[in-house]
């Protein structure tokens, strides 16, 4: 992005350096990334994988603009899935459109130095200049860990900058270190056993890459296990065969190519730590964390705390978020009324009020809930409780082939699937993540309430509150059980392959930083509004047009007649044979089509279909009309079975275009959201069919 007239220090000036930032999960990488780039961030996707590509602009110590690329947080460069290949491919400079970084900032958690140095050890093998950001020195100090900086620098032979990311300590030095010119490439790395070294160099000579990266690349190749080697797209067969025969020779000579390099790196780390890491006096604040865990993962108290935290979260979502939701609802209505008052009754006015304002307002109204949920998820993540929740729930989730990390996203989907699906980012395993995304919308979200509320009123106009509550609870359970069953099925059939092992790091508890939580809320909400917003706007307009055109010839037709005449009305007729087995007539068909983009629209569409003035607060008029609705042969339309079937349909059907948009974004493909619509609609049909036909077989109405 070159600016037209390069003014000094202008943000549009051509970037002078491409910097990548890498680190283990939880080392404070995002904190440093955000502090360096502020809000000058861009989020996108790498082609073909589900990994998010985040870049930002920052300035070197002389104001020279640099581009900072956020590499996915990981424990190693070892590649086990296409997603994990991204970091390696960027660092080897072979990802199209992403320049090879000039320097890597490797963020290291000083309070957990030994394991964090593993990634550094791998980075040093790639022959790219490395700057080590030794973060969390405050925590290390509190824990009584003394790090001898001079010794560490000497051992690593790269700049090491002590930092406290959350307090802004060390950023000047960090900028200086990456601005330095020239940046020397690393000269030291872990020494491999002699036989391995010899074979590595022999393989390196055959690789079609620049000589200085060849050794690193060869090592990465040799440590790939069979399957990953087969999946390799970057090299032709000869290289893969060569790698395999080298691996066999190594194995024959008693060296396991998969583990020998790891052992060698840790042996080297051992030497580094022996020289630079001293356990001084001072109380171990980690022991406080341990004590907390004694309670929070206790077999009795742990559950109580867990349930309490989840209950509090939902209480806040449904109470705190209610106020702004009411305001937004009110504002949308006021805006629509205003437009109605100011404009003549034309199609354009209809487009604006019924299409744009109603459609977009209907989505924005969920934003407060989404934000509150993001806030809580942020706290859970930042305090470290998220890992405990996964620890507690893992056993249960393993029964359906998932692991504990899938629990919180699924639970969040009880409020809204969108934050739930975005929260799946903490699941490293691609298949697990995909399965969680696929089943999350089956959890009954709060938008379903509106449909449940109307249908239960029609089903039991005078039933007891307990019975109503029981049925609604049943709907929630149906969603949950189906989600778990489908997860199990998907893991078993669709995305089979070896179940990944669970490796869960339990970071020490931390006081959350509200600034970083706010930033993340801002980022995710913005993402939701931008990505979903455009799709929602387009679809709202489309659905409005479907429900408006063609217009009836008769100018003073009632809205109900007009709707019946429109494309949507005709589609309702067209799908009647499909939905007749569920006991639905074409009018319900219109409701299904009209609520395709947002399930709660079902209520307002039905109000138009039946020509009733209704509002959200009072469903009585709609209820009475629906109760009085008769078929051609005089039988009522909304029999108990039809009502129950409709509720089941809405439990299982996707009917939410915002979710489609977010799934499209998070999976970086159209296949998965379309697949999701198909399978959920199929399930919904089957569910409603079983209720209606099964009920009739049993002699119910």
């Amino acid at each position, binding site marked *: 992005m070159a600016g037209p007239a390069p003014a000094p220090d202008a943000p549009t000036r051509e970037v002078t350096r491409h910097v990548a930032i890498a680190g283990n999960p939880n080392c404070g990488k995002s904190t440093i990334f955000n502090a360096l780039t502020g809000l000058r961030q861009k989020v996108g996707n790498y082609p073909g994988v589900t990994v998010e590509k985040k870049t930002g602009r920052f300035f070197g110590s002389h104001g020279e603009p640099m581009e900072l690329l956020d590499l996915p947080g990981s424990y190693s460069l070892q590649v086990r899935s296409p997603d994990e290949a991204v970091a390696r491919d960027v660092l080897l400079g072979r990802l199209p459109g992403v320049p090879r970084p000039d320097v890597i900032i490797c963020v290291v958690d000083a309070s957990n130095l030994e394991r964090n140095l593993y990634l550094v050890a791998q980075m040093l093998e790639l022959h790219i200049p490395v700057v080590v950001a030794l973060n969390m020195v405050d925590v290390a100090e509190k824990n009584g860990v003394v790090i001898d900086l001079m010794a560490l620098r000497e051992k690593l032979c790269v700049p090491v900058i002590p930092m406290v990311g959350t307090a802004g300590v060390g950023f000047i030095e960090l900028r200086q270190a990456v601005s330095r010119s020239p940046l020397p490439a690393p000269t030291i790395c872990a020494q491999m056993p002699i036989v391995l070294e010899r074979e590595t160099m022999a393989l390196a000579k055959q690789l079609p890459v620049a000589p200085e990266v060849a050794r690193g690349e060869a090592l990465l190749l040799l440590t790939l296990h069979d399957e990953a080697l087969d999946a390799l797209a970057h090299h032709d067969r000869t290289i893969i065969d060569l790698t395999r025969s080298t691996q066999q020779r190594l194995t024959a000579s008693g060296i396991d190519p998969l583990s020998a390099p790891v052992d060698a790196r840790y042996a080297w780390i051992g030497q580094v730590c022996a020289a630079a890491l001293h356990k001084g006096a001072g109380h171990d604040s980690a022991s406080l964390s341990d004590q907390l865990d*004694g309670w929070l993962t206790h077999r009795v108290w742990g559950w109580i705390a867990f349930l309490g935290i989840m209950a509090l979260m939902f209480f806040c979502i449904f109470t705190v978020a209610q106020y702004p939701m009411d305001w937004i609802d009110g504002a949308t209505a006021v805006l629509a009324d205003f437009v109605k008052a100011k404009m003549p009754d034309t199609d354009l006015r209809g487009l604006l009020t019924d299409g744009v304002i109603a459609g977009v307002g209907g989505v924005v109204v969920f934003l407060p809930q989404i934000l509150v949920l993001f806030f809580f998820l942020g706290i859970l993540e930042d305090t470290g409780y998220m890992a405990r929740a996964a620890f507690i729930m893992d056993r249960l989730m393993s029964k359906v082939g998932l692991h504990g990390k899938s629990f919180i996203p699924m639970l969040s989907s009880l409020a809204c699937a969108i934050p739930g699906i975005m929260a799946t980012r903490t699941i490293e395993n691609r298949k697990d993540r995909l399965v969680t995304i696929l089943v999350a919308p089956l959890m009954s979200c709060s938008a379903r309430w509106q449909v449940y509320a109307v249908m239960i009123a029609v089903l039991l106009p005078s039933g007891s509150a307990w019975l109503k509550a029981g049925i609604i609870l049943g709907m929630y359970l149906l969603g949950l059980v189906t989600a778990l069953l489908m997860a199990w099925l998907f893991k078993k059939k669709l995305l089979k392959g070896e179940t990944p092992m669970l490796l869960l790091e339990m970071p020490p508890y931390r006081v959350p930083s509200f600034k970083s939580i706010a930033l993340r809320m801002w980022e995710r909400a913005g993402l939701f509004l931008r990505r979903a917003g455009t799709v929602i706007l387009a679809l709202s307009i489309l659905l409005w047009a479907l429900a408006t055109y063609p217009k009836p010839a008769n100018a003073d037709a009632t809205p109900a007649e007009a709707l019946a005449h429109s494309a949507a009305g005709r589609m309702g007729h067209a799908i009647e044979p499909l939905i007749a087995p569920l006991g639905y007539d074409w009018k319900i068909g219109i409701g299904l089509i009209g609520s395709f983009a947002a399930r709660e629209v079902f209520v307002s569409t039905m109000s138009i279909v039946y020509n009733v003035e209704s509002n959200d607060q009072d469903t009585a008029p709609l209820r009475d009309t629906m109760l009085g609705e008769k078929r051609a042969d005089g039988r009522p339309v909304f029999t108990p079975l039809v009502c129950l079937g409709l509720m089941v349909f809405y439990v299982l059907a996707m009917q939410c275009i915002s979710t489609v948009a977010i799934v499209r974004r998070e999976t970086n493909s159209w296949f998965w959201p379309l697949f999701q619509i198909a399978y959920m609609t199929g399930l919904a049909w089957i569910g409603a069919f079983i209720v209606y036909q099964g009920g009739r077989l049993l002699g119910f109405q």
Partner: protein
Amino acid sequence: MTAETGDVLSGLKIGEKARVAGFDLPPEHRQRLLEMGLTVGAEFEVVRFAPMGDPIDIKVRGYHLSLRKKEASGVRVTRL
């Protein structure tokens, strides 16, 4: 499985310390454990079990790592 004799990770009790002696795991799993610092010879301590008995939380190289019993039963150890 030799869990009863106590020479695999899953057979250890809370508070017990041990050293990794070897693995009976598929190569990919073994590699991941190694990369997390559970190398042969590494010392660790069993800290706790999850409320439902699985996974196991251990402390290795100064940090907490949880793994399932299934994999833990493939980690051979020598008690300290």
